[in-house]
Structure formats: C-alpha cells, structure tokens
C-alpha cells in the first residue's frame, strides 16, 4: 500500500504541475493567433508588437509544458505498468493519435513561428501560430478522450482480463468526453484570458503602453467573459452527467452521506466527519442540489452509504468511498474561483467599453486583476483534483482499481527516488519560470528585443573579461 501511495503522489504532483502550463499554452496560443490576425487584417504594427510580447511569455511557459509533458507520456509505463497492460489496447490509441496529430503539429509550427518572423510571408507566419493553437487544442482533445475512458469506459470489451477496444466511434462519442473536453478547453481559454488581462492591468496601472495594453486587455476580457460563462454552463451539464455515471463522485463532492430527500438542498459549507459519516455543521440552500442535478426543484440524489452498499454487491467487498473532504472542498473552491472570474470578466467587459484612457483610470479594478491571474490556476487544479480523486478507488471506473494498476516490480525506494528527483527539478523549474515571467513582464514590450538582440561583441567581452578583443 505504501508504494501505491507514493505512485499516486507522484502522478498527482507531476500531472497537476504539468497542467499549470498546459491551459496557459492553449489559451495564449489562441489569443496570440487573434492578435496576429488583427495585425494582418489591420496592418497596424501595434498588433505585431503585441503578438511578439505575449509570444515571449508564451514561449517561456510552452517550454515547461513540453518538458513536463514528456514525463506524462512515459510515467504510465514506469509506475503503472499493470494499468498500461490493462488499458493499453483502448487508452494507448488516443495517446498515440495525440502524439502523431498534435505534438508534431505544435512543435513543428512553434519552430517556424518563433524563428520565422523574417523568413516567412506574414500570412504563412500567421498560419503557423494558428497551427500551434490547433495543435495544442487537438492535444487536449485526444488526451481527454483517454481520460474520459477512465471516467466512463465506452467502446470496449473485456478480453483475457483486459480492456480491448471494439468501437473507436464509441470512444469518441463518449458522453463524458462531450462535456469534459469543452469544459477543460474553455477553462484553458479562460486561463489565457485572465493572464493577458492581469498582465495588461499591470501596465495600465503604470500607464505604460496604454494603447497596446488596453487593446490586449479588451481582447482578453471579452474572450474571458464568453469562455468563463461557457465553462460554467458546460460544468453544469457535466454535473448532471456525473449523477448517472459516477454517482459516488457526485455524492462525495456534496458530502452527501445518505440519499437526499426528494427536494435535495445544496450545502454551501460543511464540516465533514468521515469517521462517523456525518456532517456536524452543514449550511444548505434549499432545493439547490435538485436544481443542479435535474434542473427541477425535486429529485433525490443517492448518498454514499447507499452507494457503498450497492458497490459491495456489484464489485465485491471493499471501500468505494473517495476522500470526501478533498472532493467536497476542491469542488467548492473551483466553483468559487469560476464565479469570481465570471464576475470580474463581466465587470471588465463593461469597463472596457469606453476609450483607453478611461479604462486606465479604473484603478481599483485594475489593481485587482493581476492577482486574479491566480483564479484560473486554482480552478484548473482543484477541478482536476476533484475529478481524479473523486473517482477513487478506481483508476478506470468500475474496471480497474488504482491499487491494481501499479508496476509490481517497481518498489518504494525507486519511486521515492523519482518522486524526489522530479519534485526537486520541478520546484527549480517553477522558481526559474516565475523569475523569468516577472523579469520579462517588468521589461515590457519596449525592450522586447532586449536580451536577444544583444550586441554580440559586448557579450564576448563580458564572458571573457581578460580578453583583449
């Protein structure tokens, strides 16, 4: 059990960490594509500088997304070999397609985009960034196809004790995927939008490059308004699906120990006592859960005790409860962060309606926005922790338990080694990443060409102080 615990921590840390970079990559790629399209359409060089400035930040972020993504591709084999053997026939396909369709696309075109400003025609250059945006979004689609199978297995049969694909169409038509992909993708767009809005606010407050950043801000805040509202709409649909496909996750996210009454209330705050399976403190909104689950004021939601009894009958003895505390609170934090984002985007959209100068004077709001960059990150991370931990003890819902998926020959010392190794490197990367972000944001678009356009001779002198050159 010790090894399972380590394997899970390693997977959790590396995946949540990887997903700090992914949403910003997806969101920024789209926003930069829009900016560069405006440059081509309006022939205004401000948009070119805009695309280049955000492109700089994009690349710092992209590099870490790429290198932490390599780990993702291989850790199933490293720490979860029994899982890989069990699901490979089904789960491997979307991963391979992700690599062939998305990774090649984004990596080839990020090269032509970064290095091709003066080598490609403006339209081909624009095409490159759109291909990057398409690539990263395709990547999200295929990896979520794989994840949706873990949440709600479709398109398979069990053959020789393993999952075997029997319908690729069913894998793609997975109802879980049809809500999960838009939810995650829109969340990523919201991340990009809040990042651009927050950094732009920083400049507007300091009255630097007001025109460029007021325009950036508008592009971001209108995109963010649409995407943050749609995230919530899709999230609602996701919850309604959950109640049928993963009722235990639903019950845990509501800390609902016993099946709710006919008119189910939604608890806004609960003190959870898992040992005694009750909530000593529970502040509830009447009808709330019924409305969330069924769009009616009525409808009972099954509770964990009843589901546990049902699963024991169905799957044999065992504990089928996830960590209620984690599932309940991560869900609430995600919803709170999402609601704040909708509010801030809506407010910002109104503030952005008038001219640049007027926008730059909305100082209280602008002062808040750089801090609001944290919100999408909080929502993304808590959302994933809720959905993955809420599915426990299953790795693949109803088919394979997480504890049965580990590599039988990889013992605790080895997992400790990689956990500490990757942990240390990731922590160092985080420091460097934040440092570079702050540095480049402080520098701003004016010195955009700064460190790269350095006078070669001066560098030589600096690196060889004794040289007589």
């Amino acid at each position, binding site marked *: 059990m010790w090894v399972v615990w380590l394997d899970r921590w390693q997977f959790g840390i590396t995946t949540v960490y990887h997903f700090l970079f992914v949403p910003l990559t997806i969101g920024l790629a789209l926003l930069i594509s829009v900016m560069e399209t405006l440059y081509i359409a309006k022939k205004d060089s401000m948009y070119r500088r805009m695309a280049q400035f955000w492109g700089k930040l994009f690349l710092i972020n992209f*590099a*870490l997304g*790429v*290198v932490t993504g*390599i780990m993702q*591709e*291989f850790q*199933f*084999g490293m720490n979860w*070999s*029994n899982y*890989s*053997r069990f*699901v*490979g*026939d089904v*789960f*491997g396909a979307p*991963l*391979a*397609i992700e*690599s*062939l*369709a998305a*990774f*090649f*696309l984004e*990596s*080839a075109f*990020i*090269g*032509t985009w*970064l*290095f091709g400003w*003066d*080598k490609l025609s403006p339209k081909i250059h624009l095409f490159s960034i759109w291909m990057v945006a398409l690539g990263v979004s395709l990547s999200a689609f295929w990896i979520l196809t794989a994840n949706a199978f873990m949440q709600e297995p479709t398109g398979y049969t069990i*053959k020789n004790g393993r999952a075997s*694909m029997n319908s*690729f169409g069913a894998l793609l038509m997975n109802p879980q995927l049809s809500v999960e992909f838009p939810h995650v993708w829109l969340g990523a767009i919201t991340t990009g939008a809040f990042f651009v809005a927050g950094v732009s606010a920083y400049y507007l407050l300091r009255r630097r490059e007001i025109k460029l950043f007021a325009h950036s801000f508008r592009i971001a805040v209108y995109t963010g308004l649409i995407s943050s509202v749609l995230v919530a709409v899709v999230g609602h649909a996701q919850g309604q699906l959950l109640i049928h496909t993963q009722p235990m996750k639903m019950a845990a996210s509501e800390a609902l120990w016993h099946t709710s009454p006919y008119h189910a209330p939604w608890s806004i705050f609960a003190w959870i006592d898992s040992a005694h399976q009750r909530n000593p403190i529970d502040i509830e909104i009447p009808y709330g859960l019924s409305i969330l689950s069924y769009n009616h004021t009525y409808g009972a939601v099954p509770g964990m005790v009843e589901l546990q009894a049902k699963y024991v009958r169905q799957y044999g003895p065992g504990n089928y409860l996830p960590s209620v505390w984690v599932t309940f609170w991560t869900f609430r934090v995600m919803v709170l962060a999402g609601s704040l984002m909708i509010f801030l985007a809506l407010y910002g959209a109104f503030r952005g309606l008038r001219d640049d100068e007027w926008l730059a004077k909305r100082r209280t709001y602008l002062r808040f926005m750089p801090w609001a960059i944290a919100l999408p990150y909080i929502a993304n991370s808590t959302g994933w922790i809720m959905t993955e931990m809420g599915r426990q003890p299953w790795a693949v819902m109803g088919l394979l338990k997480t504890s049965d998926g580990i*590599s*039988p*020959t*990889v013992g605790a010392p*080895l997992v400790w*080694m*990689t956990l500490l190794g990757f942990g240390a*490197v990731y922590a160092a*990367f985080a420091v*460097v990443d934040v440092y*570079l972000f702050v*540095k480049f944001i402080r520098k701003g678009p004016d010195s955009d060409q700064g*460190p*790269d356009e*350095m006078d*070669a001779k001066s*560098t*030589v002198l*600096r*690196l*060889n102080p004794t040289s007589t050159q």
Partner: protein
Amino acid sequence: MNLNSLWFVIITILFTGFFVLEGFDFGVGILTPFLGKTDEERRLLINSIGPFWDANEVWFISAGACMFAAFPDWYATLFSGFYVALFVLLLALMARGVAFEFRSKLSHTGWRIFWDFAAFVGSLLPPILWGVALANLMKGVPIDAHMNYVGTFWDLISPFTVLGGVTMALMAMLHGALFLTLRLGGAIREKARSTAKKIGVWASIAMFLFVIYSYSQTDLFQKIGLDPGSLPVLAGMALLSVPFLISTKHDGWAFILSAVTIACSTATVFYDLYPRVMISSLNRAYNLTIYNAASGHYSLTVMTIVALTLLPIVLVYQTWTYWVFRRRLEPGGHLDY
C-alpha cells in the same frame, strides 16, 4: 504483412526517425561547449537546431505512444523495467529542452554557463542511454513469466551495453558535426568539418567493435548467418565513406550517409529482434513478441488507418520546416535562441 508486423515496422520507423533527426540535435548539444568558444558561437550552434529539435524529439514521444497503443506489454515492460535509465533520460531531456529555451533569455554569465552545462549533459546522456538500451534489447534482459523485468539497473550495465552507449554517442556527435557543416557559415563551419573528420574515425572504430562484440553477445549470428544481408552492410559502407566525403568537402553527402548509417543500424537492431520485441534472458518462452505483447486486431486496424494517414502529412510539413530554414546562420545575424 499482418498488422502486428506492420506496427513493428511503424515503430521501427519512428525510432529510426528519432535517431536520425534527434541524433544530430544531440550531437550539436554535445559539441557546443567544444566548438563554441565565444557566447555568440555557442548561440549560433544552438540556433542551428533551434527550429527543429522540438519536432525531432516528438519522434521519440510518438514511438513511445505508439508502443503503448500497439504493444502495451512492450511499453509496460520496457519502461517499468528500464526504470532508472528512463528516469535519467527524462531528466536529461527536460534539462536540455528548458536550457535551449532559457539560456539566452538573460545575459548574466552564470546563468548562461549553467544552462549551457545543462544542455551539454542533457544532450550527452540520452544517446548513451539509448545505446545501452538498444544493446540490452539485442542481448536480452531478465524477464519473468508475467512479462515483468526482474533485474536491477546494474543488470543493464555490461561492457557490451556500455560500448553500445559510447558508439551511439559518437555517432550522434559525428552526425551533429556534419549537420553543422550544412547549417553554419564562416570559420565555425570549417571547425565543424575538421571535428567531424576526427570523430568519424572514432565512431567507425566503435561501431566496428560493437558489431564484432554483438556476434558473441547476441543471437545476431544465428539469426542472419555469415552473410549479414544488405542493411548492416549498407550501414558499414555508408559509415566508411563518410571520412572520404568530408575530406573532399561533400558536406551534404557526408551528412546523408551518416544518416543512412544511423537508419540502417537502427533497422538492423529491430530486424534482429523481429518478431520479438523484448528478449528474456531467463527463458525463451518468456520473450515478448509482436503477438503476445500486442493490442487486439480492432485497435491495430484503427491505429493503422490513423498512422498511415497522419505520418505522410507530418513528413510533408516537417520537411517544409527544413526548407524554410535552409539558409546558413552567419555570425552577426539575428538569433532567436
């Protein structure tokens, strides 16, 4: 050809693409501290692979992902078995990728020295580890009846496998030096050429020793007999012609033939394996093959359609990127990395 064999071929192609393309990236990374004496020279060297290295690395990611899809047991056994080696490989690739992107972002000397070191180590370790891994695949490793690797990291290390690692690293350096003769102009091009000449000798010797050694360490001899067939002979002839082409300054041909050497050597290793994917040194019955390690027929059919549609498209646009950046980098020009 049945689907299992076809997928074995596709994975061979992906690994071959990886070694040929990322091979020169690794080589350039290893040679950068030696060829680049000034900061601008080092930047020129890194920028020579700047637009390409990321997409080249995807050949490896794709090979791994396709193994997962087509031969889940191969994927599971290989990466849980070669655990420590893969761990080091991943750290190296991470350090290297970040290093290329970050090293020129700040002009601080210590910063650049640090990332140059990371890029060097991150470029040197992967070919060594891959050489060791391929030698082990040829030789066989302890795999039990449940397809699990039951050895330790140290079981992967032997004179034969270390020689495999050294050979691979030398080949990458030769390939990288030849790539540089095509991508750079000026004095550094000459330097790359003379370096290629020197490394070419050592790479040929290492390759020759490795082939000889592999006859005693693997079942290559039983399998292909005295007449090794066209692939290894082609690899050997290509390698031997490289020094001649360098000295006559046929840089393009020299690069193509070092690519042929790498491609044919990789293909030979996989041909030697076929139809096995991992050889058990404990019992022949425990071998993983393209049949007992594979996904079902339906899954392979779907993936065949997908891969045969996507790979040609990938080849087209990746070739196009090389066309876009066909011009040599000259000192004094604009550098992005």
